[in-house]
């Protein structure tokens, strides 16, 4: 019985890159993966000596990003800080906090944990209960996403970060692209790239996605090779997510036609410059909290007002 061997050396393979027909051993896979991260970082045209805050969740993408950037920080002259938001999901967040603490210590990156409760007065579990009692107007992923984006940007700015990096991967990008297509939201497609938030508002920290070209499965394999122990508890609110169905459809297509996700991302990147340019989008300031907002009152304040009402 013959074990698959790396296409570039005689070592044992750990992953088969289906659309390229390559088998890769741990070392060649690490090189392949880090080159994808470099490809994204090179598009950002990072300032030398820049300070980058990494918004992490304690999951595989976070771990992979933290590990990859810890390896590449010297090459790009980056100063890093790991930031985790504790949303307040009982039973789910605790193992992730543990992964986050252990990983930032292991990779010697200074870290900070902040919570929804400290900043907004509620844990996500409480917010979901309130939403359910009011007819479930806002789904958990909507609430979580709005508060997390707000907090990450505000804190990164307060830490005087030049960049805010998140662990969005190729799968996330393709899913969001399809969701925006289904909604006919061309403006969002035009804004969504490796780097965003550059000219929209002075209070936006430039957001970067180092894992933009990395597939979800590659993130997990990289993280496992780097010592990641996946927490075995799943988010209890996953069943309310619209993206789950879309993800399954895209992955079914990827299995039938390897490279589907890569081609869809390339299509989005080719279309993007021809859609609405960022200069054309006006972002105002929330009259309640002073943070960037496309409405008079930002989504975060709207949600907080609704939760308190």
């Amino acid at each position, binding site marked *: 019985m013959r074990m698959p061997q790396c296409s570039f050396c005689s070592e044992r*393979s750990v*992953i088969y890159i289906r659309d390229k027909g390559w088998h890769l051993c741990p070392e060649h896979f690490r090189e392949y993966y880090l080159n994808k991260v470099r490809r994204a970082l090179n598009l950002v045209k990072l300032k030398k000596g820049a300070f980058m805050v990494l918004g992490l969740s304690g*999951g595989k993408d976070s771990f992979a990003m933290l590990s990859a950037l810890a390896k590449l920080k010297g090459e790009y002259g980056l100063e890093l800080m790991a930031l985790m938001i504790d949303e307040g999901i009982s039973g789910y967040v605790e193992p992730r906090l543990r992964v986050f603490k252990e990983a930032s210590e292991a990779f010697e990156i200074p870290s900070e944990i902040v919570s929804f409760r400290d900043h907004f007065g509620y844990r996500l579990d409480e917010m979901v209960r309130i939403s359910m009692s009011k007819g479930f107007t806002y789904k958990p992923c909507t609430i979580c996403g709005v508060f997390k984006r707000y907090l990450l940007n505000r804190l990164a700015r307060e830490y005087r970060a030049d960049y805010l990096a998140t662990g969005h991967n190729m799968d996330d990008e393709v899913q969001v692209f399809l969701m925006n297509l289904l909604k006919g939201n061309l403006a969002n497609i035009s804004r969504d790239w490796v780097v965003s938030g550059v000219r929209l508002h002075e209070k936006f920290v430039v957001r970067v996605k180092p894992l933009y070209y990395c597939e979800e499965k590659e993130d997990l394999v990289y993280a496992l090779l780097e010592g990641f122990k*996946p*927490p075995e508890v799943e*988010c209890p609110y996953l069943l309310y997510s619209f993206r789950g169905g879309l993800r399954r459809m895209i992955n079914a297509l990827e299995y039938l036609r390897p490279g589907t996700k890569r081609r869809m991302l390339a299509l989005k990147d080719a279309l993007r410059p021809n859609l609405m340019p960022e200069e054309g989008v006006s972002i105002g300031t929330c009259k309640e909290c002073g943070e960037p907002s496309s409405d008079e009152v930002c989504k975060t304040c709207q949600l907080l007002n609704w939760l308190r009402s």
Partner: protein
Amino acid sequence: VGCDEPGITVKVLMGNRKFEVKVREGAVLEDLLKALKLNPVEIVGMRGNEVVPDDEPLREGDIIRLFWTVAGG
């Protein structure tokens, strides 16, 4: 494969679940995943501390831990 047919038995660990699956001799990880109605694009398998590629042959008595890539980003 059916209970009376020749094949190999592997133990599968997934989250908190443990179960045994009988697959045909020469089956690879991808065959096991398809038998479990799982999409290989969404799963990473490990044998002990080693990550296993989808086309790696399985052996009698293997203990394979499966990780769902979708689980909490």
